[in-house]
C-alpha cells in the first residue's frame, strides 16, 4: 500500500507571503514525485477565492479547502483589521478573534478529512498544529509537526503567549518534529525544551536553478561605476533591516559610490527612511517597496552582493534565490541557509562592521566575487525538493514501521 500523508497546510502559492508557502508546495510536489499520496488541507481567505494551484499531478493531491480568514504572519491585531473587511453576517462564521477562527478551521478541517485513511498526519507551523493533533488522534497515526518559523523568530524573542503555547502543544503532541534547519532545532531545544532526538532536520529545497555560465561570465567582465548591494525581505526587526542600514552607512563612509537597494515592505519603513537620511544615505539608497517575482529576479541579477542580515532566520530561501542569479551572498550566522551554502560569508547579525568589510572585500577582489558566484550554485543542485522530500519520506517510514 502506498504511503498517504494527510497534510494541514497554511499558505500556498500564489497566495503566500513568506517562505512557508513555497516550501510547502515544494515539499508536496517532491513527495508526489516520490510516489507518496498527499491530501492537503488549506485555509483560504474566503470561500470564493480560488488559489488556482495547478501542477502535473493535480489529480493526486486532493486539496480540501477550508473557509478561514487565516493568513500567515497574522497577529491578533492584523487579524482584526482583516476581519472587519468581511460583511457582518460572515463574521460570525469566522469567529471574533484569531483563536476562535483557528478553532473553526481546526474543527472543519478535521471533520472533512475524518473518512480518509492516512498513514501519517503532517502539519505545518502553529496554526495547523491543533488540527494535526486531533486528526492524528482520530486516525490513530503518527503526527509530524513541521516547523518553518517559530514565534520567537518572528517576534525577536517577545512571543505572544497564546501562539507560543500553541507551538509548544504541537511539538509535544508530535511523534516527530521536522525543523528546517539546525538553527531551528537549537531554538526548539533551547527555548521550548524539546528533546533533540525528537527533531529531524530537513533543510528546505530549492526550485531555483544555477545561473548560466554566460551570466557568470557577463558578471565577471562587467565593470560598474556604482556597485549595488541588495536587501530583500520584509522591513521588520527579524530580517535585520536596521543592521543592513548600519552596514550601508559604514560602507558609504569608505566607498560613497556604492548603492543600496532595500526591497520589501513592513512596519519599519518610515523608521528606516529616517535612519538612512540621518546617515547621509539618501542619495545612495532606494527603497523599492514590495517587489513581485519578476522584479525580484532583476534585482538579484543586478546586485553585486546580496546581504541577509536576519536576526533570527529559520531558513532564508532568498539566499538561494540570490545565488541562482549568480550573486555573492553574505548571510547572518543566525540563519538556517548558512548551513547549506558553503560558498558565502557568514557574519553575526550584530557585527555590521564585519558585514561591511565582507561586502567591500567582495567588491575589491574580483577572483573572490567570481568564485562565490560560480561555486555557491552547487548548493542548488544538491538541494532539490525531490531529494529533501525523500528525507521527509524516510521520517514517515521510520514512524510507520516502529
Amino acid at each position: 500500500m502506498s504511503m498517504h500523508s494527510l497534510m494541514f497546510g497554511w499558505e500556498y502559492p500564489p497566495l503566500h507571503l513568506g517562505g512557508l508557502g513555497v516550501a510547502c508546495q515544494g515539499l508536496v510536489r517532491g513527495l508526489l514525485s516520490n510516489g507518496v499520496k498527499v491530501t492537503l488541507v488549506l485555509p483560504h481567505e474566503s470561500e470564493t477565492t480560488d488559489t488556482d494551484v495547478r501542477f502535473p499531478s493535480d489529480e493526486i493531491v486532493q486539496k480540501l479547502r477550508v473557509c478561514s480568514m487565516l493568513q500567515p504572519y497574522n497577529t491578533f491585531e492584523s487579524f482584526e483589521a482583516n476581519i472587519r473587511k468581511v460583511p457582518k453576517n460572515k463574521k460570525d462564521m469566522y469567529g471574533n478573534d484569531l483563536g476562535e477562527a483557528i478553532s473553526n478551521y481546526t474543527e472543519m478541517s478535521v471533520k472533512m478529512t475524518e473518512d480518509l485513511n492516512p498513514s501519517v498526519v503532517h502539519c505545518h507551523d502553529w496554526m495547523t498544529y491543533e488540527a494535526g493533533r486531533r486528526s492524528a488522534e482520530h486516525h490513530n497515526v503518527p503526527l509530524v509537526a513541521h516547523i518553518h518559523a517559530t514565534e520567537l523568530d518572528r517576534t525577536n524573542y517577545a512571543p505572544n503567549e497564546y501562539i507560543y503555547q500553541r507551538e509548544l502543544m504541537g511539538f509535544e503532541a508530535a511523534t516527530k518534529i521536522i525543523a528546517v534547519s539546525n538553527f531551528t532545532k537549537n531554538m526548539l531545544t533551547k527555548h521550548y525544551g524539546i528533546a533533540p532526538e525528537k527533531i529531524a532536520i530537513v533543510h528546505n529545497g530549492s526550485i531555483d536553478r544555477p545561473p548560466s555560465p554566460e551570466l557568470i561570465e557577463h558578471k565577471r567582465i562587467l565593470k560598474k561605476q556604482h556597485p549595488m548591494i541588495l536587501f530583500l525581505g520584509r522591513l521588520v526587526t527579524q530580517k535585520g533591516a536596521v543592521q543592513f542600514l548600519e552596514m550601508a552607512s559604514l560602507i558609504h563612509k569608505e566607498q560613497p559610490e556604492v548603492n543600496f537597494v532595500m526591497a520589501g515592505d513592513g512596519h519599519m519603513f518610515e523608521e528606516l527612511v529616517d535612519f538612512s537620511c540621518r546617515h547621509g544615505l539618501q542619495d545612495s539608497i532606494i527603497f523599492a517597496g514590495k517587489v513581485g517575482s519578476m522584479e525580484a529576479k532583476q534585482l538579484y541579477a543586478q546586485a553585486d552582493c546580496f546581504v541577509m542580515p536576519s536576526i533570527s532566520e529559520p531558513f532564508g530561501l532568498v539566499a538561494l534565490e540570490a545565488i541562482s542569479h549568480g550573486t555573492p551572498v553574505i548571510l547572518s550566522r543566525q540563519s538556517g541557509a548558512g548551513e547549506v551554502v558553503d560558498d558565502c560569508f557568514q557574519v553575526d547579525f550584530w557585527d555590521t562592521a564585519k558585514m561591511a568589510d565582507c561586502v567591500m572585500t567582495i567588491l575589491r577582489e574580483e577572483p573572490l566575487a567570481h568564485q562565490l558566484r560560480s561555486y555557491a550554485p552547487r548548493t542548488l543542485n544538491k538541494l532539490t525538493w525531490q531529494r529533501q522530500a525523500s528525507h521527509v519520506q524516510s521520517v514517515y517510514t521510520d514512524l510507520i514501521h516502529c
Partner: protein
Amino acid sequence: MNPRICFYFQVHQPYRLRDLRITEVGQGKADYFDSEKNHQIFRKVAEKCYLPANALMLELVEKYPDFHICYSLSGVFMDQCKEYGPDVLESFQKLAATGKVEFLAETYYHSLASVVSLEEYCEQVTKHVRTTEELFGMTPKVFRNTELIYNNEIAQIARLMGFNGIIAEGADSHLEGRNPNDLFRPPTFRLPAEQEKIVRANRPLQKRARDIAVLLKNYKLSDDVAFRFSDKSWVGYPLDAGTFTDWLMQSGGKNANLFMDYETFGEHQWEDTGIFDFLRELPAIWQERGIQAVTPSQVIADWKKEHTHEYDVHETISWADMERDLSAWTGNHIQDAALSSIYALESQVKGTGNKGLIEAWRRLLTSDHFYYMCTKYWSDGDVHKYFSPYDSPYEAYRRYSHALADLRSRLSA
C-alpha cells in the same frame, strides 16, 4: 632480513592572520598576524604535544641504543619557539644533544616557493640550514620540501643545493607496484643552465652532492598511526604496538619510512587515545625483536647504489589530501589569486631592503594560508576545516587579501 624503521616528524606552526579590516589598509599598522591566537595555539600544542612528546622521545632515545628519530622544524616554528616557547626549543636542543636525532632542512617559511620562485626557494632553504646549525649545532644533509612537495626537478635542485637525500611521498601511481620501503633515486638529467646558476649563487651547503637518494613515505603504515589510530570504525582499531610491529615487518624492503606530523602525538590523537603509550611500547618491542630505528642519514650511509630503482615523478606530488598533489593549496580562484599576487611582489619587496617588510611578506608565503582557502568539499574538506583557524576559506582569503593590499600600499608609499 627485517626492514629497519625510519621515524620522521614534521613540526610546524604557521603565523595565522588576525581579523584585518579594509579600513586599516594603508594606515601603517604593520602587523598582520594574530599574536594572541598564535601564542595561545602554540602553548596549547606545546602542553599537549611538544613538551610531553619530546620528554618521551628523550627518554626513549636514551634508553634504547637502536632507537633514532628525525625531525624537520619549519623556520616559522623555530621563530615561534623563540617567541612563545623557549622551553620547547630547549627540549628539542636536548634531543639534538643526544646525537641520535637528525634534523632535516626545509624551506624556512614552510612555503610553496619550490614551485613558484627558485631564487626565493634557495634563499629560504639557506636560511633554514643556517638557523638549524645555530640552534642545534648540526648541518642538515637531507632535505624535505614543504608538505613533501616533490618532482624530478625538485630532487635535482636539492642535489645541487648539496643534499644527499630527500624525502617524498610514496605515491602508488609512481611506485608502480614497487615497495616504498626501498631506496630510490631520481632520474638523472641536467637542469637548464639558468636554474643551475641560481642554485649555485644561493647554495645552502658547500658543494653539490654527487648523488641523491629518495626516501619514500610508507603512507599506509604512516597513516595507520597518524590518521587511523583512534578511529573506532577502522578494522585495525585498537592498534597495539605488537600488531603494528608485525605489520612493519611484513611490509618488507629495507626501511619502512613512517613520516607524519609531530602533532599526531597528543594533538591530532589525544593523549587519552593511548597514543603515547603506543609510542612508548614500540622501541621496547623493537629491541626485543632486534629491529633498528634509524635516521635518514643512516639509511643513506648504507645505500647500495647499484641496486637502486628510479622514482620518476614528472608532475608534482605531495603528502596532502587524497589527491597527493598541489590541490590542497592551489586550484580554486582565490588560492590562485592569492598565490600569484603575493609572489608578484617578490622583487619589489626585496628591492626595498626593509627587513620588517620582507619578513612580513615571507610569513605570508607560508603554505597554510593557501591551505585554509581550499574549497574541495569532499572528505578532505573536513581535514582542511579541522586545521583552519578561520571559519571559512573565504574568511581566510578576506584576511589575506587585506594583508596583501596593505603590503602593496606600503610598497607604493
